[in-house]
């Protein structure tokens, strides 16, 4: 028996564990199969679906290249504005919550209470927030901004808190050993560590917020979502096609730019 074989035999075996996990997974899979119901599937559905896809592939070019306030271009700009403001407000509000939920900054009870609060904020669907904010501001993009900022807080604080928990405290110790004040420690010890990561998380969330714009339309909170939902509900698939093309191109563009920015930020 050579060294390689010995090493291989010495490797810990967790077959039992893997086996039980896969059994549980199989049971869950079979249990969830009960949602599959194909009895409503007939040829008329397929015809409607192919019509929809044909409509989307033959977009309404007039709407796509219409630059007035009901054209796709303006709606996209409005969506960007909503996502941008929502991200900015959300990311500012998320900072105190992130520090309150970081377990290396505050005592354990406070951090777990804040974490539960964050899960609640994250779980309530955007539709519910939208309705609440429409009471405050009336329908329109303003309500969209507020909804976006509230839904952003949940995820942003969680990711911020992960960064804060990874904070390198030895830097702070060495700074206090050479006699820095608390303010200097925050300015030169903590902010440089966090700033790039926070910005990168913000850009990532901006990306996501653009994608979630369709959801805001459900409650009449402005952006490109509302015309998209209206067009879908009234079966104007060519309009849906032109809106979707605008949205997809915008999201892909923003994604490319934000990926470039984020790699530059993280590499410094």
């Amino acid at each position: 028996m050579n060294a390689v074989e010995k090493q291989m035999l010495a490797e810990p075996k967790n077959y039992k564990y893997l086996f039980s996990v896969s059994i549980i997974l199989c049971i869950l899979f079979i249990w969830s199969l009960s949602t599959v119901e194909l009895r409503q599937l007939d040829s008329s559905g397929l015809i409607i679906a192919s019509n929809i896809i044909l409509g989307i592939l033959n977009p309404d070019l007039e709407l796509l290249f219409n630059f007035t306030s009901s054209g796709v271009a303006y709606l996209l700009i409005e969506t960007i504005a909503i996502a941008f403001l929502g991200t900015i407000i959300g990311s500012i509000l998320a900072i105190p919550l992130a520090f309150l939920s970081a377990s290396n900054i505050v005592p354990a009870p406070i951090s777990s209470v804040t974490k539960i609060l964050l899960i609640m904020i994250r779980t309530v669907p955007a539709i519910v927030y939208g309705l609440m904010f429409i009471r405050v501001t009336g329908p329109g993009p303003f309500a969209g901004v507020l909804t976006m900022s509230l839904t952003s807080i949940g995820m942003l604080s969680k990711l911020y808190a992960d960064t804060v928990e990874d904070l390198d405290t030895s830097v702070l110790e060495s700074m206090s050993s050479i006699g820095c004040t608390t303010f200097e420690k925050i300015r030169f010890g903590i902010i440089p560590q966090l700033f790039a990561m926070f910005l990168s998380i913000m850009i990532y969330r901006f990306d996501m917020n653009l994608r979630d714009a369709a959801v805001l339309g459900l409650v009449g909170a402005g952006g490109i979502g509302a015309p998209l939902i209206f067009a879908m509900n009234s079966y104007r698939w060519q309009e849906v096609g032109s809106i979707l093309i605008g949205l997809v191109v915008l999201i892909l563009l923003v994604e490319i730019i934000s990926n470039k920015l984020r790699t530059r930020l993280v590499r410094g």
Partner: protein
Amino acid sequence: MYDKIFLPKKLTLPNGKIIKEKRSRTPLIVILITISIIVSVNITGFDMKILMDRWSQFFVIIGQMIPPTWEYLPHLWGPLMDTIKMSLLGSLLGATAAVPAAVMASSNITRNKAVSGVAKFSLSILRTLPTLVSALIATFIFGLGTMAGTVAIFLFTLAYVGKLLYEQIENVNMGAFEAMESMGLTRIQAFRYAIIPQILPNYLSTALFCFEGNVRYAAILGYVGAGGIGLLLNEGLGWRNYPNVGIILLMLVITVFIIENISEHFRKKLN
């Protein structure tokens, strides 16, 4: 360009050498962001005064949700389980289907540039397509109900996991793969023994993370008739039956909390 307008600062070192320090970009970025904020405020009609005057209105609906109607709870179990089943099945199938799609899309395994390009492009399109749109189209094909929601979640998971997976495959260390190929293993065998061990933990963790998000997202799909607890939520909101909405949200939060903790436990184990 920027350096030509704002000339770099010149510093003379003790040994007489002159070096240039580029001016900081921060003021430019701050100005750009300020302009964008002002433009966005104008477009969206953001008004601090309204917010200050009427913020208390936000809590009116929350106030009406308390106390939630506990008697409604027995009606909730079915749809809640439907939501979980939808996201579970969609995530499982989507994550499985993502493997061949990712292999096709990664340019170091698929030598044919056209195939990998087309696969990458279709994954991006699928990912940017709003889930609500795919769910609505699915309701026309599969009828109203959980099946449509499952299909929408399947498509989203396929695109999301597929993208992260092909990025990982492309960044994988190819040395072992090439060595195995030169030893005479087929490409599939080499993939199995050289690439899969490198990507498996990350793949499983991405799939779990996606599942977590899908449970949350499945709640919205009810709006387009794609089944699950979203249907009841919409009904409650539509009839302004806020105590019912309260209990639905409470159950949703508890479910998501449990699922998140389970998935976090496994993801920590994978790392």
